C-alpha cells in the first residue's frame, strides 16, 4: 500500500486516469516484468520511430502502486530515445532502495518490463522471432530469465 501520508492529488489523478494503459497491436517490442512470488506482472508495449519512443503503453496485474508507477513511468518516456529510456529505467531501479519493499517490487516490475522490451527489440532487430521477453524481479537483478 502507498504511503498514506503522501497521497497527493497528482497520485489520485493517475489512479483515476492511468496514462498509457492499453495494449498496442503489433508493437515494435514487448517486455514483461514479473513477480514470481505472487504472479503479478507488467507488460510494456513500444512503438518506435527509429530509435525514438513514439508510443509506450502498459498493462498490469497488480496493485494501485503498480498502476500509478506504470502511468508516471510511461508518461516520462514518450518522445525519448531508447538509450535515454534505458538510463531512466536503470536509475529508477537504483533509486528503489529508498522506498518501502512492497512499492519497490511494483516499481521494479515496471522498470524491468521496459528493460525486457528493449531486450526483445534487440532480439527482433537481430532477426529472432520473439513475441516478448520476460525479466523476473529481484533486488540484485540476478534471476533474469527468458520466458
Amino acid at each position, binding site marked *: 500500500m502507498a504511503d498514506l*501520508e503522501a497521497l497527493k492529488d497528482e497520485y*489520485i*489523478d493517475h*489512479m*483515476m*486516469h492511468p496514462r498509457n*494503459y492499453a495494449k498496442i497491436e503489433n508493437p515494435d517490442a514487448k517486455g514483461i516484468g514479473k513477480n514470481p512470488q505472487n504472479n503479478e*506482472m507488467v507488460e510494456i508495449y513500444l512503438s518506435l520511430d527509429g530509435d525514438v519512443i513514439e508510443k509506450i503503453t502498459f*498493462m498490469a*496485474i497488480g496493485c494501485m502502486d503498480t498502476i500509478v508507477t506504470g502511468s508516471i513511468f510511461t508518461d516520462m518516456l514518450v518522445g525519448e530515445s531508447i538509450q535515454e529510456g534505458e538510463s531512466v529505467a536503470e536509475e529508477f531501479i537504483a533509486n528503489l532502495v529508498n522506498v518501502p519493499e512492497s512499492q519497490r517490487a511494483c516499481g521494479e516490475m515496471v522498470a524491468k518490463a521496459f528493460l525486457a522490451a528493449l531486450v526483445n527489440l534487440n532480439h527482433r532487430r537481430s532477426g529472432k522471432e520473439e513475441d516478448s521477453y520476460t525479466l523476473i524481479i529481484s533486488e540484485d537483478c540476478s534471476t533474469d530469465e527468458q520466458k
Partner: protein
Amino acid sequence: MSKSKLFQQKHELWLAILFGSFSILDEEISDILYDFSMIEYRHLTWLGGSLAQEGVSFDYDKGEIDFQAEDYATLFGKLIVQIEKMRESYPDDEDIMFARFKSDEDYFLQKLNFLQKHIKNEPITAFDKSRKLEHYKLDQTQTNALTLFLFEESYKEYELILVYTYANFFTDSKLLCGIFIDLIYESHFHLKSFARMMAKMGILSIPRTMMEQVYKFDDLEKFLIDGIKEEEGAKEECVKLAQMVNHEELSNFFYFINYQENYHIELMRKALAHLKEKS
C-alpha cells in the same frame, strides 16, 4: 460488425450506464440508470453465452468510455449517443436475442430523453477529487486509507464479476454455475457500494481493463485457491479500514462487508470440493 466486437461495445455500454448511474447522487434517478445497466449486463451475459456456444473467441478489452459529465443533462445526452450507436451495430436478422436488446434500448432511449427534458438539471461532482464524505469527519490518514481501499476493491469487484461471468460461459456444472452467480451478484452489490462512496468523494472512475490472463485460465482449481487467499486478504483490509476510520456507521459498514467475505470463502471452498470430487 463482428459478434466479438459487438461484445466489446456491449461491455463498454454496460460500464457507461453503470458508472453514469454511480455518478448521480440523486438516488431515485441513479436507481433508474442502475436498473438499465443491470439489464445491459444481462445482455452481455446472453451475448457472451451465445458466442461461447458458437465457439467464437471474445475478450474483455475496452476502449475509452465517455461517461464523465458536468451535469445530469449532459450525462443523459452522452448515454443516448452511446445507446443509439449500439442500436445501429446489431445485425439486421430476426434473431430473438437482438430483438430483445433493441426493444430494451428503445425504452432506455425514451426514458433518457424524458429525463433530459423534464428533470431539474443538477451538477455532477463525482470527479472533483474533493475526497470529503458528507457527515463524516475523517482526518488525512483515514481519508487516504479509505481512498486507496476504494480504488483497490472497486477494481477487484469489477474483476470478480467478469471472471465469474466468463467462467460461467464455459461451465456445465449446475452447482458451479449457481455458486458463480451468487458470487457475481455479491460483487455487483460491493461494487455499487464502493463506487457510490467514490462518487461522493469525487474520485469515481471506471476500473482499468483486465489482462486476458486473469480470466482466460486453464486451472479453475488454482484460480479458486488463489481466490480464497485474496478474499482472506480483502477481509483483513476491511477490518483494518474499519478500525482505522473509527466511525461507528462507516466502521459497521466495513465489518458488514468483511462478514460477507466469509460466506464468499465458503462458497469458493464448496466449488473447490466439487471440482476435487469430479476429478
